[in-house]
């Protein structure tokens, strides 16, 4: 196994801050926008984004929810391991709002497809955008593209991109893992 660090330390923090500023360009004070982190790994990024936005916009009220997509996935009964659900927590109304879906890594796009389905069970948003920390380019199975990107990565399918977080893994880091041949 060979690990390549793509992003860590100060650059990680700068990337998060840049994403926040890009969001503010389009969403102003977030009075008509909500953030939805996708379970299980997208919720750390959405929490961090909401925290940073709170620092930049101290007066804004930023709605941040978490969305579980397990029951909407397209690989039920197809994989080796059962799909285990997580909790969903959306304490606000998304009908007519601008929704920003947040996930850590965008790869095939299937998770986002399921997330859009899951989200629609809560209402009809005015607009849906996608924010990801890592975009694994040229690997999409579905016509889905992000609106906000932390970093772009060119990788092959046998490689893995893992994002670790200070809250759970002691360190903010994006690493590319390759199986050694």
């Amino acid at each position, binding site marked *: 196994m060979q690990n390549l660090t793509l992003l860590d330390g100060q650059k990680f923090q700068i990337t998060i801050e840049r994403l926040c500023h890009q969001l503010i360009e389009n969403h102003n004070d977030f009075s008509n926008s909500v953030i939805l982190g996708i379970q299980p790994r997208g919720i750390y990024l959405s929490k961090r984004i909401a925290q940073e936005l709170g620092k930049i916009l101290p007066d804004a009220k930023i709605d941040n929810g978490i969305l579980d997509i397990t029951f909407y996935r397209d690989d*039920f*009964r197809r994989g080796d391991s*059962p799909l285990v659900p997580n909790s969903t927590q959306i304490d606000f109304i998304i009908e007519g709002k601008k929704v920003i879906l947040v996930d850590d890594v965008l790869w095939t796009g299937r998770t986002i497809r399921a997330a859009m389905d899951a989200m629609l069970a809560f209402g009809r948003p005015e607009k849906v955008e996608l924010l990801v920390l890592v975009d694994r380019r040229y690997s999409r199975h579905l016509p889905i593209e992000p609106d906000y990107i932390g970093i772009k990565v060119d990788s092959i399918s046998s490689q893995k991109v893992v994002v670790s977080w200070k809250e759970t893994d002691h360190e903010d880091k994006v690493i590319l893992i390759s199986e050694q041949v």
Partner: protein
Amino acid sequence: MAASQRLSSKHLLGIKDLNTQDIELILETANNFKDVINRPIKKVPSLRDITIANIFFENSTRTKLSFELAQKRLSADVVNFAASSSSVSKGETLIDTVNNILSMKVDMVVMRHPYPGAGVFLSKHINAQIVNAGDGAHEHPTQALLDAFSIKEKLGEVAGKKVVIVGDVLHSRVALSNILCLQKLGAEVMVCGPTTLIPKYIHTLGVKVEHNLMKALNWCDVANMLRIQLERQDIKYFPSLREYSMMYGLNKQILDSLDKKIIVMHPGPINRGVEITSDVADSQQSIILDQVENGVAVRMAVLYLLASQKG
């Protein structure tokens, strides 16, 4: 998260075949589904490629509706079959009936049958997954699971709680499944009723036996009041319904005289004025309607977990 993510059994025939981890997995998954059925859109697409047959050889309102709603909210295709309006009355055997249904490409069978062990018998002879929705006076596993879920929801935990099952234990499949389920989750269980309605060797299951309702109620945290199953009683087990309700019926006066606020449950259908009076059934301490709501979530969890086993 539960230690295991997969049920240890291919079917749900009874609580007897489940281990504690299975039960905890079902209750946890049910929690997720309870969330789903309280959304504006109560439906998820998980089971869209699965067909389920509900085969009921015995009458049912709640269980059948509950299963059907659970199946529809998981997007499964559903066919319903009631024995009274079918070829069973022309003399077809159980295996033939079910095999005919399965030839129409059915993946899962939910069955209620008046004979104990009907589900086990079927599971040995046919290919589909089977969910027991009540077999005679034997087991009614989903009822026990939803009762445990409701207790957990109300009291935070099942372990260490004291639950008394009052009434017609002899004819009740709810009683046996409840005893097994609650014990596996670490609760203490007592049965209470007239000697004629308490099976002679029930203490071998490790339950306490009490014939005095007041003593039982003073002991417990939760009282599960069973229905007197007159349709299964071939002989007279007590002199009259009036006498039974005087000795074992729960009324508001008794409930208020206890020094703690116990929780009152009932698997339904209620015989108002027999095992439980109206003011108790409709009181703040009763969670009878919560049980019905939780029934859909628990059945969704069972169907989801069973369906996820087929590769």
